[in-house]
């Protein structure tokens, strides 16, 4: 690959990051059409950054989308039902996953480096989850904090969260529920004023015949209290926290257990928590710019 100036490298990187304006993006695309090496550099950045999408939750598009794709690609003509050919065995390729950390008692330094590394990553994944959810929460509750241009019209609910209509801006509390050192599995957001909460599933799927159930665990209470079964959708919203006082809510541990389909039959968890977390982040209660409540 030929040597590129730092300006070129930065342009390729920012194209992949997505922060160039429309004109700059058009410039990059023109350069890519005439310069194979530059295209490869952009591709390398896209590949490096692309792994971040592993953290993004999946959302099913509506079935109509496929019909439109078929029409647009000229595949929509009436035809015999598709018969899947016998798939040749795909070449045996190594899975991208990594073997667990090397277990070698003599290699203490390496192990502790690995542990530190994991701690750093765990911290950062929490930051990612918090950044993502803060953004969603801002969009729902404090649209005025959003930059001009993506600000929703008042009363437009921008996220698929069932909250009471037109909530007034208030404090936000967020808990990231995860396994020790694992990536976030659920993000719990509590709206301070109403104590409504919603749970966003980000990295967990229940086995068939099982349900995830959310619990509140507090030293003020004698046993874990069920906050309900987490639905199959990306979001589950519930008002049941309203019966707990703010202090209990703020200091509690939130835990998710795996229960039989529909949840624990007797209101007690039947297994150890699979994911836990505490409320960690607060969106300050008042918007900096005063504005009429939606």
């Amino acid at each position, binding site marked *: 690959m030929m040597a590129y100036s730092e300006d070129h490298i930065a342009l390729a*990187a920012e194209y992949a990051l997505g922060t160039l304006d429309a004109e700059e993006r058009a410039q990059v695309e023109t350069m890519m059409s005439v310069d194979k090496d530059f295209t490869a550099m952009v591709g390398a950045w896209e590949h490096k950054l692309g792994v971040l999408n*592993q953290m993004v939750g999946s959302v099913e*598009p509506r079935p109509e989308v496929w019909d439109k794709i078929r029409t647009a690609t000229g*595949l929509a003509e009436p035809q015999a039902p598709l018969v899947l050919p016998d798939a040749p065995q*795909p070449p045996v390729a190594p899975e991208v996953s990594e073997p667990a950390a090397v277990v070698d008692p003599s290699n203490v330094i390496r192990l502790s480096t690995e542990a530190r590394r994991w701690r750093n990553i765990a911290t*950062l994944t929490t930051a990612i989850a918090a950044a993502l959810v803060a953004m969603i929460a801002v969009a729902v509750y404090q649209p005025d904090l959003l930059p001009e241009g993506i600000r929703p019209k008042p009363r437009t609910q*921008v996220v698929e969260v069932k909250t009471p209509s037109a909530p007034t801006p208030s404090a936000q509390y967020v808990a990231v529920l995860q396994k020790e050192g694992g990536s976030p599995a659920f993000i719990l957001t509590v709206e301070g004023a109403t104590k409504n909460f919603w749970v966003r599933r980000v990295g967990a799927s229940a086995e068939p015949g099982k349900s995830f159930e959310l619990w509140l665990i507090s030293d003020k209470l004698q046993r874990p209290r069920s906050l309900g079964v987490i639905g199959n959708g990306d979001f589950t919203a519930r008002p049941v926290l309203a019966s707990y006082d703010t202090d209990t809510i703020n200091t509690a541990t939130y835990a998710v257990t795996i229960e039989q389909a529909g949840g624990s039959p007797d209101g007690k968890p039947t297994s150890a928590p699979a994911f836990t977390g505490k409320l960690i982040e607060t969106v300050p209660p008042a918007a900096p710019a005063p504005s009429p409540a939606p």
Partner: protein
Amino acid sequence: MLTPAELVWLIAAVAKGDEAAFERLYAATRAKLFGVVLRILRRQDLAEEVIQEAYVKIWNSAGRFNPGLSSPITWMTSIARNRAIDVVRKRSELSIEEEPAAMEVAADSPDPLARREMTEELKRLLECVGRLEPDRQKLVLLAYYNGWSREQLAAKFETPVNTVKTWLRRSMMDIRECLGL
């Protein structure tokens, strides 16, 4: 769920015009791609348009996919995400206000691609992002995940656009050095 190797095989079949392979490829990847573009566009209708265009492009350019340079899912996601970014940049003066029911999403997500353990590549990248100052970590993540423009980031960080420009550039250069690119 399909492994990367199976996706590579499907893309190769799509390149030869295999419609059944295209349908399987779509089924295996649509929820991930849609999740990524919906986060950026924040409107169901726009996200659906972008997804349609992306799969048409995937159908037409499957022969140009090079498994030596990229993973199949990254290649496909990049096509969709680039299209989404183009759309938001061109519409930047418009707000989403004309949309009646923004983000009324039927949100069921059975896609196990998202649930795989973190790959070594993701761990490496996160390590490098983690070495940036906290504000810049957030800057890079908000830019990537939400597709925010420099102007939007400047508003969010209450900082002049030129400063954001400098931060972004330095952050990317730091990440580059850290990754050894």
